[in-house]
């Protein structure tokens, strides 16, 4: 066991850093450090650059177009990119549906869908939650009825991040209503341009538009777009959720958050609180590395990733809270122009003030999405502790 990096890993980190400096637009980088929201182009340009280099799908096995990196390389890649201010890779294609397709899809499906994910030419979004199916995902009611070579899909998905940017959506749909909820679900890929697909924005408490309702009204989907067998979609769903929970802890971004807290803060009362969250990040990072290292020996992420998700969200929330505390009364001015648009507007208070409160508000979502903290704890309680 050894924490020190080998020379070849140091060289690798340098290579990643050089790539980021060359390919990350200064405007995008600036948005990261100033807490502004990215627009679609920020993500697409950056992801396509990574795609060209063959690094976008850095977690994929070599045979499906991954670079074949070890755990240390992945760790360095994520950390260096976060340090350089890269936007996080939008996970829906690369980390969610991609692995589902190469694990459960047919060769034809792999050929058809994986290249667009690897190059980031096709944007994906996730059709899981429904108004009546949040924590209780398996109770979903979006119905897909077989009609020859097609399914006719009717229902509503919600909390769909970036549906307004999406070309395709992967959906859990009910294909058999007469069995146990988990046994009648199928996994469908739906082209967002299909007639009957409507996207309606949901505005969040900080004024941001990231998530949407997606209405499916008699949407005709080829049976060839189903991944896995009919009524066996829950297997794909669970596989995907475990992957989602692993990446969702956002350790590199939290490390960046702790660094900028230290830079901004000159208040001794805050310094200890920052130290405390710094240590929490270290514990989380080490736990995540232990999980990754175990996975490298073979196998899928286990139920312990739920603890990483819980702690990861708490840490992100705490960092946002401390950033707001550091700003004090100047967190009050609301300047949406400075958060969402390219503008000449100047901040009312200190430079770092405008995103502080909105970010704190917005980060409350992290203990809700991807399986709420309550759901994650139920998983740990059942699957690990046997309670």
């Amino acid at each position, binding site marked *: 066991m050894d924490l020190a990096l080998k020379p070849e890993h140091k060289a690798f980190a340098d290579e990643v850093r050089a790539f980021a400096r060359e390919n990350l637009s200064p405007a995008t980088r600036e948005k990261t450090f100033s807490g502004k929201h990215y627009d679609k182009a920020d993500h697409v340009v950056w992801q396509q650059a990574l795609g060209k280099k063959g690094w976008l799908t850095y977690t994929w096995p070599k045979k499906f177009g991954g670079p074949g990196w070890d755990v240390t390389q992945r760790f360095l890649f994520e950390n260096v990119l976060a340090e350089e201010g890269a936007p996080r890779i939008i996970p829906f294609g690369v980390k969610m549906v991609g692995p589902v397709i190469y694990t459960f899809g047919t060769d034809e499906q792999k050929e058809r869908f994986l290249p667009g994910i690897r190059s980031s030419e096709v944007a994906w979004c996730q059709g899981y*939650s429904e108004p009546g199916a949040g924590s209780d995902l398996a109770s979903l009611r979006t119905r897909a009825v077989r009609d020859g070579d097609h399914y006719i899909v009717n229902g509503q998905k919600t909390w769909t991040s970036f549906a307004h940017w999406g070309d395709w959506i992967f959906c859990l749909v009910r294909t058999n209503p007469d069995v146990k909820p988990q046994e009648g679900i199928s996994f469908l890929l739906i082209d967002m341009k299909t007639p009957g697909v409507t996207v309606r924005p949901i505005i969040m408490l900080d004024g941001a538009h990231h998530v949407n309702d997606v209405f499916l009204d008699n949407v005709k989907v080829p049976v060839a777009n189903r991944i896995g067998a009919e009524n066996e979609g829950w297997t794909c769903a669970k596989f995907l959720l475990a992957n989602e929970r692993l990446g969702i802890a956002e350790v590199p971004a939290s490390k960046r958050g702790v660094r900028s807290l230290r830079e901004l803060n000159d208040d001794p009362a805050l310094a200890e609180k920052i130290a405390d969250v710094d240590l929490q990040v270290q514990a989380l990072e080490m736990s995540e590395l232990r999980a990754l290292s175990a996975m490298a020996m073979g196998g899928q992420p286990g139920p312990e990733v739920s603890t990483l998700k819980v702690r990861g969200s708490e840490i992100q929330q705490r960092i946002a809270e401390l950033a707001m505390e550091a700003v004090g009364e100047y967190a*009050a*001015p609301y300047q949406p122009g400075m958060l969402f648009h390219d503008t000449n507007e100047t901040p009312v208070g200190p430079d770092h003030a405008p995103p502080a409160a909105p970010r704190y*508000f917005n980060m409350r979502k992290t203990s809700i999405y991807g399986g709420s903290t309550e759901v994650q704890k139920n998983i740990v309680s059942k699957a690990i502790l046997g309670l």
Partner: protein
Amino acid sequence: MDLSLSDEQKQLQEGVERFVREKYTFENRKKIAASERGWLPENWAQFAELGWLAIPFSEEDGGIGFGPIGTMIVMEQFGKGLVLEPFLPTVVLGGGMIAAAGTAAQKEALLAPMIEGKKQFALAWLERQSRYNLADVSLKATKEGNGWSLSGQKGVVYNAASADDIIVLARTAGSAREEKGLTLFVVDGKAKGITRRDYPTQDAQRASEITFDKVSVGADAVLGTVDGGFPVVEDAVDRAIVALCAEATGCMDAINAATLDYIKTRKQFGVAIGKFQVLQHRMVDCFTNAQEARSMTLMASLKIEDKDAIVRHKAASGAKVQIGKSGKFCGQSAVQMHGGMGVTDELSVSHYFKRLTMIDLMFGNQQHHLTRYSNLAIAA
């Protein structure tokens, strides 16, 4: 000892409650927030007519003598509806300082019309560097003939755009953070040399950055004594803190009620989610937090006019610590228990959460007041 409301106080409570119920539905509030001033003149006129603007003041000052308990009753109900009319800057801060330190002439010129609903105020105390330190003032007032000339900057001045007069905390002597050498001035909001940058806040209030460039005022603009403004503003801010605590108590009641209703009706796994013990206990903690907040607010309201300054300061800081803690717990819990709906703009929950968050940051957060309380307790 008697902690129950008198008949008159109950009447007041019911009156404000009715106003909030009728005029501050969630949809209505949205419209009011988006209106030109961010509050409605017709509501303000109604406050005047009902005597609410006279509540904290003594009868000799033209008030109705309900004192801090009266303010508490009003603010608590305002908190339930997230009322936007500038009661705090105008009545509690501005009116409060004029009543406490004003001359007979100032009371007649300022307080009387305020009570009639014809004047509004703002308090300009904060500066970019001052964080929560009330004495960290560098805006300078220098002698100019019989009067004074004010130059410098103030930030996050609530209600500045609507205020007829801005009460400015200025340095007339001493060094940067000294409590001595601060003087309060009543400055016409439209005086020459004033420039404002107005903006909405996270919680739909209105505030401004103000630059004072050689703003001339007469000798009669001084509120209280020259170099003796600090204790006046400190007490006024303490009273404002207690009023904010009452508002926060109302917010907590409302957000807890909304959450309780939600977990009783929202079904997952075939049952109302309120059937899950983890949510039950969290809801109980919300309830307990709101109770503690109410208790500390009442304690502070009863002590805030004590003769002993240390008692007053400790009461305000103690209540503010509790409100910071309870407000955060209730706000975060309400959002969490509402799930995704809790982080949307379309439910009232997120708006209460934002207001509770901003209340913690106003006039010093939980940490600041814990330190202040601790220092005061050691000194006593």
